């Protein structure tokens, strides 16, 4: 009988990812948040619910996520909550763009990689096309939430 080899997987399941999956940061809810949105992937059932509060300078003050799904979608959401804290809405959008570039395989500058922090660990999904949606779910949800928030202003 052959061995199932998971060598290829180490790229996908980096320590950072699995750590966020098992020990999610900022998991929970925020009562009446300024920005809130729910994202759902109909093909695998992954769900991410995001809630953000903004301070007077319209920077992210508090952030929480809930939902359920695979390690990639949930870790990505957890990483997101850490990254966006203290950022302006424009900066969060920039981060969302950077993740797309990363997954798309674009060359990134050192400054950009710096901004991304742990999000860089999601680079591995590139080779697993079906998992790209998992990695992007939280960020797409955030974009939607912000768009709606700004539309309502």
């Amino acid at each position, binding site marked *: 009988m052959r*061995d199932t080899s*998971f060598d290829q997987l180490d790229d996908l399941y980096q*320590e950072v990812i699995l750590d966020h999956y*098992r020990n999610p940061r900022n998991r929970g809810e925020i009562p009446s948040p300024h920005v809130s949105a729910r994202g759902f992937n109909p093909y695998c*059932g*992954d769900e991410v619910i995001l809630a953000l509060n903004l301070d007077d300078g319209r920077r992210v003050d508090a952030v929480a996520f809930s939902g359920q799904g*695979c390690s990639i979608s949930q870790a990505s959401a957890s990483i997101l909550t850490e990254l966006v804290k203290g950022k302006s809405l424009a900066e969060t959008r920039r981060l969302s763009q950077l993740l797309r570039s990363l997954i798309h395989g674009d060359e990134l500058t050192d400054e950009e990689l710096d901004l991304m922090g742990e999000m860089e660990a999601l680079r591995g999904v590139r080779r697993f096309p079906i*998992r790209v949606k*998992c990695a992007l779910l939280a960020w797409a949800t955030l974009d939607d939430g912000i768009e709606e928030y700004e539309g309502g202003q």
Partner: protein
Amino acid sequence: MTLDVEKIRRDFPILSKLVYGKPLVYLDNAATSQKPRQVIQALVDYYEGYNANVHRGVHALSMESTERYEEARRKVAGFIGAPSPENLIFVRNTTEGINLAASSWGAANIGPGDEILVTEMEHHSNLVPWQRLAKAKGARMRFIPVTEEGTLDLSDLDTLLNHRTKLVAMTHMSNVLGAINPVKDIGAKAHAVGARILIDAAQSVPHMPVNVQDLDCDFLAFSSHKMLGPTGIGGLYVRSETLEKMEPFLTGGEMVLEVTYDYATWNDLPMRFEAGTPNIAGSIGLGAAVDYLESLGMEQVHRRERELTAYALDTLKELSEEFNFYGPTDLNARGAIVSFNSPDIHPHDLGTMLDQGGIAIRAGHHCAMPLIRDRLGVAATARASFYIYNTKDEVDLLKAALKDALRYFSKTLAPK
């Protein structure tokens, strides 16, 4: 006589394919089956030898394609025991078959206060069309519950099925639990209160003998792609009395008798329900799939799959600490589908891991979200589903890969 699985496997070109350098172990048959060379060849023969539009041509190719198209209808109708080929409407898939019934029969026969009875284990395709119809007509949806074990709870059937019930729409076999439902008994009870029964046979027609006259059902829908046949084709059986009274579904060429600028009259059955140029090659390919299955014998197919399911359940039992397994324990009440879940690995992650070993399973809600969420209480399950070409060795490979995946995840992970 048992099936010669090695011989069968040689008929399926894809089974000699390597995935990431490893032999393919295809355990996603409930989603779609693989195709034997006989079916693929039937498509090639059609396109290379006698491709032409059907029913209207006086030339040789058209006569041949018409004859083969109608021969395919006879084969498929015969395969499910329909009294006549006229009872068999070619549709794209099970989903279209159910929509056809909802639109052509349901819209005219279901009204305010009427009830549509389904089960809690329906595929979206046998749930959403009825929700939509109920909403449009002011009718009410009712549900036969599912037990903990994953079978139907029929204890309240006498209340659920009553004189307001106009239709029972239920799956013959669940694509998540593998449960085989007593559709014949429930059909008889439905008829006793004046209701019709529609059977979603997407998972049963490919895997066991199904006879619409024995089941005494009013509608029965199935998909070619799950029974060795091509994509884009399937069948809807409708009982004659019902069919004759049904309004057309889609309109246009082929389904009309006469057309003037002001009005149109409808063609004979079953063409009345097939508008436009049909999926001719697909129908002929489905006919070839039926030939293939009949050459094996559906009793044999069913027996062989039960054996494999027994072996799988037995083998995977060793992992019952790590995984929850869903579905009936009684082997006579289940088909070759095993759904499972681990608190430690999300099915999606598990699917990706197994894929690296060349093992194709499905992970997700299997188009049965309410069942998965509200009854099984999870967001997704992993599912292995078998067909005639699967082997005990493949079950062993599955078990070994599941173990490896668990090891990988626990190795990599700090404990919770």
